[in-house]
Structure formats: structure tokens, C-alpha cells
């Protein structure tokens, strides 16, 4: 119990004094995760919509695999991405290992199935409603997916935020592919793991509270922004 209190106090101190290390790793956490979320959303949202709209042979199997991939163990993803990006691996020449780019790649792999799956479910319901109208209006497949993505944007935002939530709190994969290098690839979660390892529970908890606060802040911010257009304008 005392540790939690000490953690809260330490968190307050770090935030109030604008601790430069804290700001650095917080910004890096945001940068890595926001980038990963944007990329994963750019892949996962249209894919989820495409799955909802199209009928093809292995559709059920594809959806089942996608749902299973939602539970991908991050450590395994990290290991695979490490092996691929290693200097001895197929993509070694790019020198991406132990850079934020490697962390983004790992996070994209982890959260894309999650975003695709949630958006597929949301879009499927909307498609059931719009189906006859969009067919009747003689829209192309592209236009249908576009309309579904646009009109379902609230639910899709939730899907993207779920992806963001999973990515920002993720440690196993980015520890392996990022390496937790100070001033290069250290982010909030890897710093928490490091400080826990050192037995500095108060500092680790403080960073944890900052992480939670950050996640909440981002969610409020996004919802706040999306509410401003609840009455849609031309």
C-alpha cells in the first residue's frame, strides 16, 4: 500500500517538475504508438470493412484467423520481428533493429488484427442496414466501403482507440525489438519494466500512473474532438 502512495507522490513530482527524462520517454511512447495506431488503422479499418462487404470462399476461415490473431502474444511477435530485422535476417540491410521504426512495426502487427476485427463487427452491422440501399443506388464496391467507413466512423474510432490502448501498454515486443536504449528507444512501458527490475517500485509505479493518465487523456481528447462534429456539417 505504501508503495502505491509513494508511487503517486513520485508521479506527481515528476509531472510537476516536468522531468526531462519523463517528457522524453512519454513523447516517444506517444510517437511510437500513435504512428503504429495510424498505420494499423489504415490497414485494419478498410480490411475489416472489406471483409464485411465481400463474400468469398475462405471468408469464415479468414475471420476466424483474424479473431485468433487478436490474442497474438506480443513476445512472440517481438521475437519474430527481431529475427526478421536482425542484421542476419532478411530485412537486416535496412538497419531498423533497435530503432523506433522496429517498435512501430511490432506494434502494427500486434494491433492490426484487433482493429480489423472490431471494425469488421461494427461494419457488418452497418452493412446489413445499408445493403439494399447501396445496391439499389448502384454504388461501386469502393464507394460502399467508403460510405460504411465514413458513416461508421464513431465505431471505428473505438476500434482504433482499442488498438491504441493495447499498443501503448505493450512491453514484451518492443523490449525485444527496441532494446530499451536510453535516449533512443526507451518508452514508458520498457522504463517501467527496467525500474521494476531494479526494485525501484515507487518510480516504476509513478511511470505506470503517468502511462494510465496518458491513455485516459488521449481517449478524452479523441472523443472530445469527435463530438465537435456530432451535428455533421457539409
Amino acid at each position, binding site marked *: 500500500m505504501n508503495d502505491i502512495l509513494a508511487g503517486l507522490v513520485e508521479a506527481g513530482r515528476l509531472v510537476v517538475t516536468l522531468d526531462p527524462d519523463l517528457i522524453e520517454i512519454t513523447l516517444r511512447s506517444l510517437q511510437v504508438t500513435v504512428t503504429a495506431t495510424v498505420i494499423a488503422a489504415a490497414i485494419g479499418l478498410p480490411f475489416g470493412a472489406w471483409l464485411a462487404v465481400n463474400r468469398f470462399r475462405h471468408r469464415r476461415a479468414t475471420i476466424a484467423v483474424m479473431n485468433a490473431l487478436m490474442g497474438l502474444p506480443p513476445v512472440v511477435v517481438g521475437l519474430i520481428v527481431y529475427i526478421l530485422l536482425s*542484421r542476419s535476417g532478411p530485412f537486416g540491410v535496412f538497419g531498423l533493429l533497435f530503432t523506433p521504426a522496429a517498435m512501430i512495426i511490432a506494434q502494427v502487427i500486434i494491433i492490426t488484427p484487433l482493429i480489423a476485427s472490431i471494425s469488421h463487427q461494427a461494419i457488418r452491422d452497418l452493412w446489413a442496414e445499408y445493403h439494399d440501399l447501396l445496391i439499389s443506388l448502384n454504388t461501386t464496391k469502393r464507394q460502399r466501403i467508403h460510405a460504411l467507413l465514413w458513416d461508421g466512423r464513431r465505431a471505428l474510432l473505438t476500434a482504433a482507440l482499442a488498438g491504441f490502448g493495447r499498443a501503448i501498454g505493450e512491453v514484451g515486443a518492443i523490449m525485444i525489438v527496441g532494446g530499451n536504449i536510453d535516449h533512443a528507444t526507451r518508452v514508458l512501458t520498457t522504463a517501467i519494466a527496467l525500474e521494476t527490475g*531494479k*526494485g525501484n*517500485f515507487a518510480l516504476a509505479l509513478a511511470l505506470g500512473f503517468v502511462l494510465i493518465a496518458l491513455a485516459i487523456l488521449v481517449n478524452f481528447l479523441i472523443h472530445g474532438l469527435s463530438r465537435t462534429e456530432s451535428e455533421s456539417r457539409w
Partner: protein
Amino acid sequence: MIRKLLTACWAMCLMTGLASADGLKLAVTTSFHNSGLAEVLLPEILKDTGIDVQLLVVGTGQALRLGEAGDVDAILVHSKAAEEAFVAAGHGTHRREIMYNDFVLIGPSDDPAGIAGTATAAEALERIAAESAPFVSRGDESGTHKAERALWKAAGIAPEGSWYRAAGAGMGATLNTAAGMNAYVLSDRASWLNFGNKGDLALLFAGDPVLFNQYAYIPVNPARHPHVNEDAAARLESWLTSPRAKALIGGYEIGGETLFTFNAVPQ
């Protein structure tokens, strides 16, 4: 509004591309990093040589794998047999001894196995085994784990049974486990002194020369991996073996205790 949001996101994506730093990647063991010595040395290295050393803090086993794959420019570890095999296999150019610290036996402050008064590390381990007192092992193929297994072997004991727990974790996490179970554990002195969650644990046995823990520096072989920063690795080696490094390493203390003994031989 959503367009603005996307624009902001793209700006962040672009920033990511610029964020990678140039420098030398050095794989070190958790025990070295936990000592806190790195935080003293790295700024001085940057000041003296201009090399931005990026530490990858991993276990010895993983450090050697990173060197093998060419993902780091040099490694600094403490597991002599594995290091020599690494160099012999051509993954590293050579092995340079830098300094040593020592391992210590930690246990519950009331010392149920009574190891505090023993003469040798082997005797201390015999008592723990005889009492079946809880003992937490790193169990992660790290340098510390290998040293621990060598000690059990030297004492003629095959540790097994419910009292012997392999944590499969780094030094800090293993110490956390030992603190939680109130168990015995082998740690390097530096990690122990810097450890923040000691609980009821205390340092019970130290000083046997078999507990000395030699650190060595190995540059990754540029013949195998042409992209490694060979020049910086060489300059870092000469800095680490310089009188300046000797003064900083020898002078590093925690709570008034010296941790490392510099023993690099000038060339």
C-alpha cells in the same frame, strides 16, 4: 476535424524517421547495468571520444546472440567460457578483460541455513542444500546463472527439489522474487547494493575468490558483419582500458563500498 487529426498523425510519422541516433550499440548484462556504473561512464565516454554508446541491457546469452547476428557493435559480458567460444567461432575479433566485481550470497537476515560463518562458497551452498532452504536461481543462462551453476558443481551438489526455484528472469526480478519468498540468492554485489526492494534480505557471504566476476569487452567481427562500427568499437576499447577509465571505475562507490576492480592490461 478528422482531417486535422490525420495531418497531425502524419507529422508524427515523419518525425519518427528522423529520430534514429548514430552511435555505437553495446550489449551489456543486466548486472552491469544495475550497478549504475554505466550512468557514470557513458557521459564521460561521450565527452572524451564523441561516441554515443547505446546500451542494450540483456542477459549474457542474448548479448552473445546479438553479437553473433551483428545487431550490436560490441559486447561487454562476464562469462569467460562462453566469451572464448564466441571469439573462437569468429563472431568477435578478440576478448579484452576490463574489470571484475564479485558475487555475493544473499539470504534472509536470520540466516536459517547458517551460511554467514562459513569459510568457502562451496560450504555455504552445502549448508543451504542440506537445510533445503529456499534458493532462487536466475535460471536464464545469464553470466550470473552460469557462475551459480559452476559454484554448485564445485560444491558437488546437483541442486534440485522444491527448495530450488529457477526464476527465469533478470537479476532485479530474481531479487524481487527472493525478497518475496525470503529465499537465498546469488547476486552480483552491484545489483544487490543498488536494489531498492531489499525487504528482509541481507548480504550473508562474500569474499571467496571463486566468486570474482570478470567482465570482458569483445568487438563484433567486422569481417562477418561489415556494417559494424569498427572504428568506434576500437576507440571505445582504448578508452575502457585507459587510466581515465581506471580512475572512474575504481572510484565508483555505492554506500561507501567500491564495486569494481579495474584489471585491464595496457597494450
